[in-house]
C-alpha cells in the first residue's frame, strides 16, 4: 500500500484563465477513503481555493458526480484503493458548462426535467375526502427502479448524444418521465409522449447504453428510453388504426 496518492484535478479559474488546466496534489492514502475524502483533504489542508460540490457523502444527494479517470462517478462512492497506483484524474462532468474547477452548471437539465412533467398528472383530481390513491406492491414495483434517480447527471456525462446534440432531453429526464408513465395513479402518459416523441425526445437516443452503465442507483435510463420508444410506436400505430378517438 502506498503512503500517498497523486490526485490530478481540473482547475478552472475564470477570473484568470481562459481554459481549464490540471493541478496535481499529493494526498495521504487511506484504505477507507473515497475520492471525495481526498478532495476534502486538499480543500482543508493543501489548497482552500479548490471548488467542488458535495453534500451527503452517502450516494443520496447526487451532488458529487465527477469524472474519475475518465468515467463519470459519484466521488463519494469511488474508493481511492480502486484507482491505484494513481495519479487519479478528477475532472468535471462532461457536456455541462464548467463554472469553476469541478463545478458544472446544471440549469439545462433542470429546465428539461420540468418540461417532461415529472409529477402525477390527473385528468380530474379526486376530492380529498375520498382518501389516498391506493397502489399494490406490484404496481409500485412497475416503476420503482426508475424512481430511484438522484439527478446526479452521471448519465448525461456518459451520453455522447447529449454531447453532440445539447438539445436532447437526455437519459435521466426521460427515465423520470417513464417513472410517472408507469405509475398506476398517473394519467399524463399521452401529454408526456407529445413532448418526448417530438424533436429532441426519445428518438434522438441511439441506444449507446452507457447511461445505464454509469448510473449509481441502477435506474437503467437506457432501458427506460427504449421502453418509451416501444410505447410511443404502439401509441402511433393505435392512433393510425383507430383514428376516431377510440384510443
Amino acid at each position: 500500500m502506498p503512503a500517498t496518492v497523486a490526485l490530478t484535478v481540473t482547475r478552472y479559474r475564470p477570473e484568470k484563465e481562459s481554459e481549464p488546466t490540471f493541478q496535481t496534489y499529493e494526498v495521504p492514502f487511506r484504505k477507507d477513503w473515497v475520492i471525495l475524502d481526498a478532495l476534502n483533504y486538499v480543500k482543508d489542508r493543501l489548497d482552500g481555493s479548490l471548488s467542488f460540490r458535495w453534500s451527503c457523502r452517502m450516494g443520496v444527494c447526487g451532488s458529487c458526480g465527477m469524472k474519475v479517470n475518465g468515467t463519470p462517478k459519484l466521488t463519494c462512492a469511488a474508493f481511492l484503493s480502486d484507482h491505484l497506483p494513481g495519479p487519479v484524474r478528477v475532472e468535471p462532468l462532461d457536456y455541462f458548462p464548467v463554472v469553476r474547477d469541478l463545478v458544472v452548471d446544471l440549469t439545462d437539465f433542470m429546465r428539461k426535467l420540468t418540461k417532461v412533467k415529472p409529477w402525477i398528472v390527473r385528468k380530474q383530481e379526486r376530492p380529498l375526502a375520498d382518501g389516498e390513491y391506493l397502489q399494490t406492491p406490484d404496481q409500485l414495483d412497475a416503476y420503482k427502479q426508475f424512481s430511484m434517480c438522484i439527478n446526479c447527471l452521471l448519465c448525461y456525462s456518459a451520453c455522447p448524444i447529449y454531447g453532440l446534440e445539447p438539445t436532447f432531453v437526455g437519459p435521466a429526464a426521460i427515465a423520470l418521465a417513464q417513472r410517472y408513465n408507469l405509475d398506476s395513479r398517473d394519467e399524463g402518459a399521452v401529454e408526456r409522449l407529445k413532448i418526448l416523441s417530438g424533436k429532441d425526445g426519445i428518438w434522438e437516443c441511439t441506444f449507446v447504453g452507457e447511461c445505464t452503465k454509469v448510473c449509481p442507483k441502477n435506474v437503467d435510463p437506457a432501458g427506460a428510453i427504449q421502453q418509451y420508444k416501444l410505447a410511443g410506436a404502439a401509441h402511433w400505430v393505435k392512433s393510425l388504426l383507430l383514428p376516431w378517438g377510440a384510443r
Partner: protein
Amino acid sequence: MSGDPHYTLYHPRWYRRRVSVWWWLQNRAYAGFVLRELTSVFVAFFAVVYLWQLRALVQGPEAYAHFLARLGTPLFLVLHGVAFLFVLFHAVTWFNLAPKAMAVRLRGKRVPDWVVVGVNYAAWLFLSGAVAFIVLRG
C-alpha cells in the same frame, strides 16, 4: 427552478468543451456502439443484393445465370464474407439488448432478461432452420 435561464447560455466566463470528432475512440463501449451503427450499411447491402436477385429472376434465366456468375467473383465473395460478419455482429448485439427495450411482465413480475434474449435466439434459430429446410430441400 423557474423563469427563463437565458443568462446561462451566453455566460461569458463559463467554459464549454467542444466534443471531439474522435469521441467514439475514447473508450471501447463507444467504439462498439459506432461499429454496431455501421452494421446497418451491411444490412442494407444484403437488401440491395436481394432486390438485384429478384430483378434478375424476373428478367429470365439468362439474366439470372449472369447474376449468379457475378456473385461468384472474388470481389463479391469477399464483400459477402465481410457483410456476413457485420450482420452477425448486428444480430447478436441487438438480440442482447432486447431485454432493455422489452420489459415483459407476467403475473406482476418482470420476466428475467435471459428469457427474453433466449426467446429471440430461439426464434432466430427456428426461422434460419425453416429457411435452410426450404432452400436445401429442392
